């Protein structure tokens, strides 16, 4: 009941194109719609923070899809900054593709920049503009410009203005950073439609790290863009399988991830 109320509120806010309301210190949280995931996040995705995503460049579709979904949930107008090399390896972002998964391409301002330093500089500029909903940074590999200082700068700018930041790293290695959450995104087989056709976007999300809260947890999810929420992959006909996810208790340390076995 509470979930659907939050969902309705958020959909109204998106229709009115308002960004989330950022309180001082305590960020507003946008629930994803997946109860276990929201529980692990402590209510939902906090806005005004930096979220880091790691994906392989061969699975750039999944990485971009999850990033676009996060941007959709966090709301507002987004600035998508890409390194040219990322587009050469993983393909260009397609507006029709974004529209097909429910993200309105009119909400996007795109900038293709020559190297990581230019991208990070433009990102700080974007984060200082409180009118934006967020800034999405797309980089490949492990650029030297992206070190702990750079990520702290991004986090400070984001916290001050309430603008969220998503850092999508294709073929990146996990390194110390000031991100609020760090995810690994891999493609998962989709729930098939009639005649064995591939279905909706499905991903395996692993929460590698979360600041101030326990990390760990792998969830196989499906993105339902009609309702604007993530569904558990095993959720069929609206009922979740009992015991599909074992929630981590607050006093247990990080690393209590669950692994899901699937048939076939």
């Amino acid at each position, binding site marked *: 009941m509470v979930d659907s109320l939050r969902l309705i509120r958020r959909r109204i806010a998106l229709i009115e194109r308002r960004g989330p309301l950022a309180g001082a210190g305590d960020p507003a949280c946008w629930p994803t719609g997946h109860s276990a995931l929201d529980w692990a996040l402590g209510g939902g995705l906090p806005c005004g923070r930096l979220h880091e995503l790691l994906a392989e460049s061969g699975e750039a579709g999944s990485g*971009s899809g999850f990033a676009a979904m996060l941007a959709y949930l966090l709301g507002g107008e987004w600035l998508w900054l890409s390194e040219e090399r990322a587009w050469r390896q993983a393909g260009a972002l397609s*507006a029709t593709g974004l529209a097909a998964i429910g993200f309105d391409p009119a909400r996007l301002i795109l900038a293709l920049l020559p190297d990581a330093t230019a991208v990070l500089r433009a990102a700080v500029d974007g984060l200082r503009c409180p009118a934006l909903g967020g800034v999405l940074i797309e980089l490949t590999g492990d650029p030297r410009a992206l070190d702990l200082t750079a990520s702290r700068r991004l986090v400070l700018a984001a916290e001050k203005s309430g603008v969220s930041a998503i850092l999508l790293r294709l073929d990146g290695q996990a390194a110390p950073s000031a991100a609020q959450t760090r995810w690994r995104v891999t493609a998962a087989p989709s729930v098939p439609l009639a005649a064995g056709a591939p279905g909706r976007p499905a991903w395996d999300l692993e929460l590698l790290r979360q600041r101030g809260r326990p990390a760990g947890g792998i969830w196989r999810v499906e993105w339902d863009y009609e309702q604007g929420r993530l569904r558990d992959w095993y959720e069929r006909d609206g009922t979740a399988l009992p015991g599909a996810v074992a929630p981590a208790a607050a006093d247990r340390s990080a690393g209590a991830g669950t692994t899901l076995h699937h048939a076939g």
Partner: protein
Amino acid sequence: MRLTACDAAARTLGLVPGMTLTDAQARVPELAVADADPAADQQWLERIADACDRFTPLVEAEPPDGLILDMTGGLHLFGGETALIAQVEARMRRWASHVHLAMAATPEGARALARFQTVPVADEAAALRRLPVAALELEADALRDLRRAGLKTIADLADRPAAPLAARFGAALIDRLDRLLGRSDSRIVPRRTAPALVLERRFAEPIATVEAAMAVIGDLAREAAQVLAERHRGGRRFVARLYRTDGHVIELAVESGLPLRDPPRIARLFAEGVGALADPIDPGFGFDMIRLAVPRDEPLAAAQLALEGGEAREEAVAALIDRLSARVGRERVRRFVPRDSHIPEQAALALPAIDLATPASWPAPEPGEPPLRPIRLFDPPQLVEVIAGLPDGPPQRFRWRRILHEVARAEGPERIGGQWWRRAPGDPGLARDYYRVEDVRGRRFWLFRHGLYGEGARDPRWYVHGLFA
């Protein structure tokens, strides 16, 4: 090989442009010859025209070696005709060794005096009358006819009634004559249109540092903001020109997505533009004039109150786009615009964001359908090696980027034909049969087969065009 230009010494020895090189070298064995470079000449003329911008924005270049400046209404700025001519001559001497200057009431008159006058005469009308008929720049036949009829100078033509002359030599003659003598008005076609607002500062002591120049630009921006506020307009494009004492001109241009007249923001855009230049600005011996022009402006109402934050938000985003565009270039900051095309790579365009004030509207996806278009598109599509293929469907196994993918699910074909209306009749081009394909790991691809089996000499190729979310 012919001569295109000769200097004065060569002319006294009897050489003229148009003579063959061998003839010329026969007459003057010690002739110094250089290759003609019309492109370099044109560039040289353009640079001089740029430098003449300090006198007036209305300059017309007449290749290969002429310039016309429209000084109407601006003589008082230079202290009168004589002072102006002295300044122009002094400037021109830096660029060229031979300068012929003349001033008249019409462009044609000035041109004729500059090119054909041999004896300086104080009075303009008298000077024009003394010119030969060649000054009218008619066709060679017409000039020959005039000479045969005994009409050798402009004075001969000016005194006769117009109607018989027009009947005998054509109306064009009378037209040109009127324009030459100032009886009818004509305007030049300037290289650049005069901007809506121009402010300038001249310095008796040239300013030597770039920081001081930027401060002056800030002052000019404040003045411009006042003028724009009076007119209820805002600028969309601002151009600052820094004139060096040696004649070189440095131009900085910045743009804004929405009409702007806030001085700190204009100054900041210029600072971003200067910071983004590949080479730092070289003041040389100093700038003796700085000009700020607003070539493009639009209506802008008096300060809008931000009632719900809606207007202010739009402006804030537009300001961010302006700053980023000034720093990295307007082409790199884009927005998506839908296009009506069935070809996937042309269904959406990414256009410079600074040109698009209102966001476009996109069609919503159909409910119940999976995404039919991939989130990432490869340009160009990437070739895949098919290991086990079927004639009527996607391959069961394919290799892409050295990884073998085993197909678990597929949907298709979606046939997207070429633009047959653009090709020769009878050649429809190859159609693409698209398949949405998922491998056992869950990676989803958009593959297509280019052409059909049995069509063409070899088996059709398969490509991956995009990756799905």
